[in-house]
C-alpha cells in the first residue's frame, strides 16, 4: 500500500501545470520565503543572490515543494520552457545563455581556489548545517517546528531523512562532537581565506560569494543561538561579510522574509 501511495504521489508531482511565463526571463522555482532570510534552503539564497549579482531578469515561483525538478531537487529554474536543476548547473546555464562571467577579473589560481571553496561549502559544510538543524540542535538552536511552521510528524520524517542521507554521504557517520569539529574547520577555513578582504576573492564579488553567502545565511539568520551559531561567532569577519552581502545585493531584504512566519513576504 505504501508503494502504491508513493507511485500516486510521484505521478501527481510529475503532472506540472503549465503556466504562461514571460519569455527571456528566468523563472526561479523555490520553496518560498524563510522567517529571517529569503529562504530556509541555502541553495535558493545562493541562486537568487547570483541572479541579482548578474542582473539577470527573473521571477520567483514559490511552488517547488509540490513542483520539483526532474532530479527531485527543490531549487531549479525554467527559461523559455527549458528546465535546469541543481544550483551549479543553473548558474552555468545562465552564464552561457546571457554571456556572463563574474570571475573574469580573477587569475586562474584564484578561480581554482574559489571553485574549491564552493565545493567545500555546498558538499560538506551543508551537511553539518543540515545535521545541526534537523538532528542535533532543533531545541537549543532554531526551533524548527515553531519558526519553520512544520507539523511535528513531518519534522521527524525530515530529521530521519537527513540522518540517512548524511550517513550515505559520510559526514553523518561521525559523532556529534566530530561533526561540530569539522564544521568548525570549514568555518575557520572560510574565515582565514576571507581575511580582511571585502569578498571571498578580493574587492569585487564573484560567483564563489553566492555559494558562501547562501550557506552562511542559514547559520547567520536561522540558528537563533544554537551550537552552530556559537561556533560561527568565533569568526566575526564572516558575520561582517554576511551583512555586507545583504546590504549590497539584498537592499529589499525585509520585503523578502516572513518575520518568523508572522506575515507574508511582499516579494
Amino acid at each position, binding site marked *: 500500500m505504501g508503494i502504491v501511495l508513493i507511485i500516486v504521489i510521484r505521478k501527481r508531482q510529475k503532472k506540472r501545470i503549465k503556466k504562461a511565463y514571460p519569455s527571456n526571463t528566468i523563472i526561479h522555482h523555490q520553496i518560498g520565503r524563510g522567517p529571517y532570510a529569503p529562504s530556509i534552503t541555502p541553495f535558493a539564497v545562493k541562486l537568487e543572490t547570483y541572479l541579482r549579482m548578474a542582473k539577470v531578469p527573473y521571477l520567483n515561483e514559490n511552488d517547488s515543494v509540490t513542483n520539483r525538478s526532474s*532530479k527531485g*531537487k527543490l531549487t531549479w529554474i525554467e527559461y523559455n520552457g527549458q528546465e535546469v536543476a541543481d544550483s551549479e548547473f543553473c548558474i552555468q546555464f545562465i552564464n552561457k545563455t546571457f554571456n556572463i562571467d563574474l570571475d573574469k577579473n580573477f587569475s*586562474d589560481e584564484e*578561480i581554482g581556489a574559489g571553485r574549491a*571553496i564552493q565545493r*567545500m561549502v555546498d558538499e560538506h559544510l551543508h551537511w553539518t548545517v543540515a545535521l545541526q538543524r534537523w538532528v542535533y540542535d532543533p531545541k537549543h538552536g532554531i526551533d524548527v517546528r515553531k519558526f519553520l511552521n512544520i507539523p511535528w510528524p513531518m519534522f521527524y520524517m525530515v530529521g530521519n531523512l537527513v540522518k540517512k542521507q548524511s550517513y*550515505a*554521504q559520510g559526514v553523518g557517520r561521525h559523532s556529534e562532537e566530530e561533526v561540530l569539529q569539522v564544521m568548525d574547520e570549514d568555518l575557520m*577555513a572560510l574565515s582565514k581565506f576571507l*581575511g580582511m578582504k571585502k569578498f571571498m576573492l578580493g574587492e569585487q564579488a564573484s560567483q564563489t560569494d553566492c555559494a558562501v553567502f547562501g550557506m552562511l545565511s542559514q547559520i547567520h539568520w536561522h540558528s537563533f543561538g544554537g551550537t552552530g551559531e556559537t561556533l560561527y561567532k568565533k569568526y566575526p569577519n564572516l558575520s561582517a561579510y554576511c551583512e555586507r552581502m545583504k546590504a549590497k545585493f539584498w537592499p529589499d531584504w525585509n520585503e523578502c522574509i516572513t518575520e518568523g512566519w508572522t506575515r507574508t513576504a511582499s516579494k
Partner: protein
Amino acid sequence: MLFSRCRSIFVKSTLISRRLGIASVENKVTDTDKRMFEMNNTGTLPVLLALAVILLTSILFVILKFCRNSKRVPAQTVPEDVVLLHHCGQGPHAPSLSPFILKLETFLRVTQTPYQIIRDYKMGPKGKVPWIEYSGTNMCDSQLCMEYLKIKLNLDLDDHLSVKEKAISTAFQRMVDEHTYWVMVHWRWDFDREKICFKQANWGSLALTVSAYLQRRAAWTQGVGRHNKEELLEIVRKDFSALSDFLGTKHFFFGDRPSCVDCSVFGQLSQFLWHLPGSEPNAMLKKEFLNLYEFCHRMKDHFWPDWNDNILLPTNS
C-alpha cells in the same frame, strides 16, 4: 504449496460432510487441522508468518552488528609506536581500489611514520575503511586519522603553509574527498559496465551486483548520482580544472614540499588514472590536464618506489 491446498480442501470437505451428517467420510480431521483452517480463513497465519520473518531478520541483523563491532584484536603483537592500517586489499593497477586507503597510506609514507598493513577486510567503527589502530585507540575516516596522527606524533606536514594556504588546503581536501569522489563512485559503478579492474581484483559477480546497487543508491542520495553522463563530465571537468589551475607549474600543491592535500588529491586522481582505463575522465587527465597527470606520476615516483610490489598486475610503466 500444492500439498497444503489439497490438505485445506480435504479439511473443508470433511468439516462440511460432518455438518451434513455424512458418516461415510472418515473423520481424519484433528484439532490442529481445525485450528489451522480457522487461522487460514481469518488471515492470522500470514500475519504470524510475516512477524516471524521480521523477528528472525532482526535477530540476524543484531548478530551481524555485534560481530562487526566486537573488539578487534591485532593479528600479532606489534611495537607501540607502529600504526596498524586496516586495509581492503591491493588494486590491480594502484595499491588500492579505495582512494581513501591510498590517501592515508601515502600520508604515512610522506611523513615516514612506521606502519603495518592488516588486510582483514573488516570495516572500522563507523562502517568505513581505512581505519587505524594506534596506541590502543581505533580511529576511522582517513581525514580524522591524519588529524589524529599529526597531533599524536607531532607531524609537521602542513607547517610550511601560511594561514591562507591552510584554508585553501582545507577547501581542496573537501572538494576532492566530498565531491570528486562521488563522481568517481558513480562513474565506476554505473557508467563502467565492464568493471574490468574489479574483476582483475577477483571480485565475484554477486559482490559486484550488490555493491553496484548500494553505491548507485548512495550516489543518488548524495546528489551527484542524479546527473546524467554529460552533466557529470562537465562537473568533473570543473573539478579537474580547479585543481589544474591551482597547481599550475608547481611540483606539489603548495610548492616544492608535499602537504596533506597532496595525499588527498593523489588518492582520488589515482582511481581515475589507473582504475578507470578508457573512460572520459581518464582521457581528460592525460590530454587536457597534463599537469595533474604529471603530478600523479611524481607522487608515485617519490613516495611509492615499490609501486609494482603493491599492485596485483605490475607493469613496466
